[in-house]
């Protein structure tokens, strides 16, 4: 156990969490004091979101002890955590889009008091007071849906404060903010800290919030690997501790200028999602598409695969034009899509590994109405082997695999269909560090074999490690095109946010 300050607000001791045999959090100690800002850093799959979920009472720790405000809790529930003053602001803010700013801010406090009647004056009073506390001015009657992202975040912060938050946990607070908005957020955090409110930032890119933080805690593969005053860390040492590696990943091989155009996208337009999208993808090229949350990168990716129907524009694969808005023809033409959310969009969770791989190839293994199980198993098994999925039995449920291996199952599914273009949306989200670089190696290999690959991501190191060219999107428009070779991470981040 580390040194625990006497007045600590939250003390977590030896907290461990197992999911079906996978250790998500391994004997982690963690403390926060009033008025302290802590950066909780780690890559995807490091266990930082698990830690937060346990603190918020959404998940129960397998073992360990949690003390909040001097009271020891055996098990937490979302209600207990909220009552103890722990408030989480998730990336989507979980606001009621159809209610006003005032109603959103005062809603949970009003609920907590079991009031049966709605008192508009009272609600506005609470909202006004809370907004004054953070020193911002937003019209109380505005419907939240119509607010810009940064203001929604402020409303979420105010809602937490109105419910007497003593600790506010912010999940990826800067992902969707421009530079100026980030600096406003930091001012507000400083005010909160003076008020004695503690803050935990959860992120995988924290250079921005480092300056208002006292402490940094770094998780890797479920273990706490480093902890110390924020002033002793810089971007390089953070990265080193997060990845456990010093060396940068192999950078992508240069583009072959003579490679023919594979995918030609012209004037693609979808009202409210993206507009005027033009680009080419060459054979063997890895093209990145990046942008902040809500920049239109995901709708664009889905549109290329037919899951979103664009109003106008053209997609040509080779010299054949593809019907817009139909995944079946897109897939038949040779476009594959690995979705962002593996668990809900990618996998059939209770089904076996082999079924998850072979779903797109069932018709090809059917002879006179009868499935040839042997050839189906052989083909799926071969692909899993080629992608180095470690499993004793491909007949076991796909849930028995780790995140990285699950991602390879989805990749195998598409590779078995011999795609010409592969769209990877967040190829390493929720994948551990080791698997991540292996997935990047797979991407290199696939590109080498002539497949055109589009990587959609906001993970900048990932884009730089895999892509030869990166398109930057903002508010649905491609604002920038950069060569992956000649740009640094900071410069790319600046272009995305400015």
């Amino acid at each position: 156990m580390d040194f625990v300050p006497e007045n600590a607000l939250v003390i977590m001791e030896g907290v461990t969490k197992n999911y079906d045999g996978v250790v998500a959090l391994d004997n982690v100690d963690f403390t926060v004091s009033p008025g302290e800002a802590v950066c909780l850093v780690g890559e995807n799959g490091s266990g930082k979101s698990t830690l937060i979920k346990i603190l918020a009472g959404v998940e129960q720790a397998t073992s360990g002890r949690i003390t909040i405000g001097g009271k020891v809790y055996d098990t937490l529930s979302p209600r207990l955590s909220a009552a103890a003053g722990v408030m989480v602001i998730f990336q989507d803010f979980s606001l009621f889009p159809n209610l006003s700013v005032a109603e959103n801010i005062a809603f949970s406090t009003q609920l907590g008091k079991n009031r049966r009647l709605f008192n508009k004056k009272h609600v506005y009073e609470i909202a006004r007071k809370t907004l004054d506390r953070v020193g911002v001015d937003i019209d109380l009657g505005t419907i939240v849906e119509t607010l810009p992202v940064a203001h929604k975040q402020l409303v979420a912060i105010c809602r937490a404060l109105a419910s007497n938050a003593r600790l506010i946990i912010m999940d990826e607070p800067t992902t969707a903010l421009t530079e100026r908005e980030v600096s406003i957020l930091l001012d507000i955090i400083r005010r909160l800290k003076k008020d004695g409110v503690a803050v935990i930032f959860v992120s995988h890119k924290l250079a921005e919030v480092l300056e208002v933080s006292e402490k940094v805690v770094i998780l890797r593969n479920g273990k706490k690997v480093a902890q110390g005053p924020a002033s002793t860390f810089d971007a390089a040492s953070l990265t080193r501790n997060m990845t456990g590696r010093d060396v940068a990943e192999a950078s992508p091989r240069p583009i072959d200028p003579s490679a023919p155009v594979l995918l030609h996208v012209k004037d693609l337009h979808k009202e409210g999602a993206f507009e005027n999208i033009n680009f080419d993808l060459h054979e063997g090229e890895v093209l990145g598409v990046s942008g902040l949350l809500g920049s239109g990168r995901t709708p664009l990716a889905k549109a290329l695969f037919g899951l979103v129907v664009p109003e106008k524009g053209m997609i040509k694969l080779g010299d054949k034009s593809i019907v817009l808005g139909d995944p079946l023809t897109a897939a038949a033409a040779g476009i594959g899509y690995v979705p962002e959310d593996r668990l809900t969009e990618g996998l059939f969770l209770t089904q076996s590994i082999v079924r998850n791989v072979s779903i797109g190839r069932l018709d090809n293994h059917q002879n006179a109405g009868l499935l040839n199980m042997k050839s189906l198993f052989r083909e799926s098994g071969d692909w899993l082997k080629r992608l180095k999925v470690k499993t004793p039995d491909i007949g076991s449920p796909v849930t028995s695999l780790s995140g990285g291996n699950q991602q390879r199952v989805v990749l195998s599914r598409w590779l078995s269909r011999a795609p010409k273009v592969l769209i990877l949306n967040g190829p390493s989200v929720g994948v551990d560090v080791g698997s991540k670089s292996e997935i990047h190696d797979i991407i290199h290999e696939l590109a080498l074999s002539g497949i055109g690959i589009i990587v959609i991501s906001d993970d900048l190191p990932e884009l730089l490690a895999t892509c030869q060219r990166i398109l930057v999107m903002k508010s649905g428009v491609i604002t920038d095109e950069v060569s992956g070779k000649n740009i640094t991470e900071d410069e790319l981040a600046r272009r995305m946010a400015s």
Partner: protein
Amino acid sequence: MNNLSPKNNMFSSPEARLAVIAIVVFITMAALSPERFLSPQNMTSMAFQFPEFAILALAMTITMLTGGIDLSVVGISNLSAVIGATILTQFAGPDIAGIEMAMWIGIAIAISISVGMLAGLFNGIIIAIFGLPPILATLGSGLVFTGLAVALTGGSAVLGLPSGVAWLGNETVFGVPVPVILFAILALGLSFLLARTSFGLKIQMYGTNPLAAQFAALDVNRLLMKVYMVSGVYSAIAGMVIMSRANSAKADYGSSYLLLAVLIAVLGGINPYGGYGRIIGVVLAVLSMQFLSSGLNMLQVSNFSRELIWGMLLIFVMIVNTQKGFKLNLGKTPQTKSGK
């Protein structure tokens, strides 16, 4: 049966539990009134009774595997039986015999089954293309089909069928009742379809996660339409068996079979949210229900209390099969969809 499906503990599988239930119900009923329940007459009458609702339960099962439901099975079976019977009475009549009779019965059955298929296609279209929730879509279409049958017949039974019609529901082949043989063929067929055909695997995958099926570029609309068409065909076949046993067709025969078919599918371990289920479970559930129903009959429990018992049983089984209910009851984890 199926080495592609995820492995699960033998004793936690719904099928193993069902086998136990079927045996317990049989023994209980046999103990309560041994001389009547175990009599050859009772055994024979049970064998002739269950196939008609068992086939409807199979029709229900295939739609439930996609996470849907077909509440129009009884409506379809009556509509197709009424149409088949009308053809027979109009063109053949009760006195027809020989080759001519066989021909007309063949034509009537072919048309009835086509009617079932079209009704299923109608369901499939309103569910897949127009995106209506299956439970409401088929509740509505079931009323439409029943209404059509009423309109065709004026609500009265269609009587005066050729004598050969009775064969399907009342005769035996090598001592086995014909409807039992028919049910066995249909159950094996469905079981084979699910385990060994691309269509069957896609049904289960779609039922597990419809969104992922879309992202995997499955032809979801065609799949759903085919599923409801199979359900319609099975319902029509059940309608033929009912017509044969009743020696007539009517718009409101077998109205208590709807609840029974849902109950059997759920009791048979078909996950009502889709994706998991085995036909052997449905067969075991059919047997349990027939034992229970015959037993209750012998104990002189009224028809109305029987429906009450079935309704309560349905709710009870669903509670036991949910994750929470299971923890409360037996402390093991059943096969259900996670994350929903």
